[in-house]
């Protein structure tokens, strides 16, 4: 039951007013304005993030599409085309076909030096010589001849019934199947296999000996006709095959998720020495947590631009013992034996003051936690070391959210408590981050990695008040483990 005392107190204090400092109004106005702005950003965060993701995607696609074709593959394909074509011109469709349908890697053909190509054009007259200058083709020919029971190379020659005009060769896969099934080099025909395949001009010339070398001119003609009149319609397809050589589609995008322990601490700047010293004596770093989700885009070979969300939880414990001594004076009584002049004695009560020492111990024990969420933007360089990857990265991050549950000890053993989620404008702070990914590819698109990383607040993570409360800057050392998906 509340009495008069409470009524008087309530009357006096309930509606009491104290002039709030004018500067507070101005500060508050600014704070409200930015709060509204960031509130709108927060409310529309999904739209903004979606728009940003679409923009990044469009930018990436645009970059990829507009980027000129790599000069490494282009000329190789062109050379290969010319070489194949010229081999055909040399009047050796059989060898030509074999080169495609056999076990030869197409890239070998495309990698042949250009000199033999030129030679083959000039030495069409002497087909043998032309072939010999193309090492791969020549080797193949020898192998084929050795396997054959005669001088006719049993190569996947394409024969039609009307003459030696090469017909489209069946797809490679079929010929490969044939290879596997029969164990022999496949012979492919579009209608029926002739008993004796028509020899290619140059082989025939070689087989017939030097005395028939004079017929080379006559054998050169049909080859040329074939080349000019029927420019090997299928050969185009065949020649394009080197493009399909599985060099792999470049995986420019990567998505990484990581988590790991984090050891974080802070240092204090400004404020009063007493506050800083007391806090440094009473706050001790504990193990925390780090997590992140990153998206990377390879904008140049070996270079990636990174963006993502980083979460850090820094833990610390507040431990402080304050010992003090208090001396109290206590009045005590005691009996004293008093002797009189006549030899008698009696006991008298006397009072005396005794000093009593009281020892007091005040123990402070609490757990503090600071949680930060930041948006990161950075660059990563990729290095391959054997089967492993070492990707150092540098980034800046902007803190967008913060939650503090902490108790700080202030001079006079006063406890300053923070238990709040910071509004946007108070949470804003910049960090710098360095990290090294030590990766091990585990599948085509996947990589497992460890990432030691360090983060430091470039602007205060907690802002102080004037000359008393210092600025606080957090830093973290993380050891993340993560998975990266490249696509």
């Amino acid at each position, binding site marked *: 039951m*509340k009495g*008069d*005392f*409470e009524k*008087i*107190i*309530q009357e*006096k*204090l*309930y*509606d*009491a*007013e*104290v*002039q*709030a*400092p004018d500067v*507070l*109004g101005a*500060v*508050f*106005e600014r*704070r*409200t*304005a930015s*709060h*509204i702005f960031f*509130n709108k950003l927060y409310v529309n965060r999904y739209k903004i993030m979606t728009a940003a993701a679409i923009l990044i995607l469009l930018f990436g696609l645009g970059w990829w599409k507009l980027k000129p074709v790599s000069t490494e593959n282009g000329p190789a394909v062109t050379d290969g085309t010319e070489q194949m074509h010229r081999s055909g011109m040399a009047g050796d469709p059989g060898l030509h076909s074999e080169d495609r349908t056999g076990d030869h890697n197409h890239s070998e053909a495309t990698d042949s030096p250009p000199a033999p190509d030129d030679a083959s054009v000039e030495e069409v007259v002497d087909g043998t010589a032309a072939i010999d200058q193309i090492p791969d083709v020549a080797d193949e020919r020898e192998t084929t001849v050795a396997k054959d029971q005669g001088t006719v190379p049993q190569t996947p020659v394409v024969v039609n019934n009307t003459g030696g005009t090469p017909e489209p060769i069946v797809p490679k896969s079929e010929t490969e199947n044939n290879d596997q099934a029969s164990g022999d080099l496949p012979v492919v025909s579009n209608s029926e296999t002739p008993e004796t395949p028509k020899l290619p001009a140059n082989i025939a010339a070689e087989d017939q000996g030097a005395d028939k070398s004079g017929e080379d001119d006559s054998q050169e003609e049909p080859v040329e006709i074939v080349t000019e009149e029927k420019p090997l319609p299928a050969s185009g397809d065949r020649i394009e095959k080197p493009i399909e050589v599985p060099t792999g589609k470049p995986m420019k995008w990567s998505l990484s998720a990581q988590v790991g322990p984090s050891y974080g601490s802070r240092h204090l700047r400004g404020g009063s020495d007493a506050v800083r010293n007391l806090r440094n004596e009473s706050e001790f770093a504990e193990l925390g947590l780090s997590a992140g989700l990153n998206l990377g885009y390879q904008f140049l070979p070996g270079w990636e631009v990174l963006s993502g969300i980083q979460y850090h939880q820094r833990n610390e414990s507040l431990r402080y013992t304050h010992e003090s001594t208090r001396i109290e004076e206590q009045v005590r009584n005691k009996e004293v034996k008093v002797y009189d002049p006549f030899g008698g004695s009696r006991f008298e009560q006397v009072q005396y003051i005794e000093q009593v020492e009281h020892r007091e111990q005040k123990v*402070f024990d*609490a757990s503090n936690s600071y949680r930060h969420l930041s948006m990161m933007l950075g660059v990563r360089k990729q290095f391959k070391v054997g089967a492993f990857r070492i990707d150092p990265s540098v980034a800046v991050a902007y803190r967008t959210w913060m939650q503090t549950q902490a*108790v700080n000890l202030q001079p006079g053993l*006063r*406890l*300053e*408590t*923070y*238990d*709040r989620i910071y*509004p946007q404008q108070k949470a804003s702070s910049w960090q710098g981050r360095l990290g090294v990914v030590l990766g091990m590819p585990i599948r085509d698109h996947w990589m497992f990695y460890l990432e030691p990383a360090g983060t430091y607040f470039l602007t205060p993570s907690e802002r102080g*008040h*004037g000359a*008393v*409360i210092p600025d606080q800057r957090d830093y973290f050392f993380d050891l993340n483990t993560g998975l990266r998906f490249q696509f």
Partner: protein
Amino acid sequence: MAKRRTIEPGKDVNEAELVRGCVDEDRQYQALLYQKYANKMYAVCLRYCNTREEAEDVLQDAFVKIFDRISSFRGDGPLEGWIRRVMVNTALKSRDKRMMKFESGDIEQVDEPQVDEQVLGNIQVRNLLNIVSALPEGYRMVFNLYAVEGYSHKEIGDILGISESTSRSQYSRARKLLIDQVKRDSTL
């Protein structure tokens, strides 16, 4: 899109209009609400906080909360009461209850001194505020909640996480300290 209004100078804005303006995040209405309640709420914060700086922080944080959540104000009671509750909660949250010292309560042992109502009535608000602010933290919280805000000891126990009897004993001690101090001030 929020509809923008303009407050005519000198026009009395009623509570419902003020709330609507703040819900629409109209800066003019927000400024008006701040002006209207800042001084009163600053006094509330001073009663709960140890320092002026802390009180200023709490005041700002609480107003940000108020503007954030004003759409949840249903208008069941007066706006001032709702704002005051937010202020008190923010101030209490800014203190770590684990660290507040609440002495266990044997209220029988605490003498309840009486104070002349006239003496208490004559004391200036500013002096009374100073006396309340000087009370130990645990006493001060309970005293404010009970004597000024009008909570019962049971409610205070729930709010601060202490027993009802502890709340009573804290209040008795706070009351004794306050009366002693008032008496001392009045004799000066």
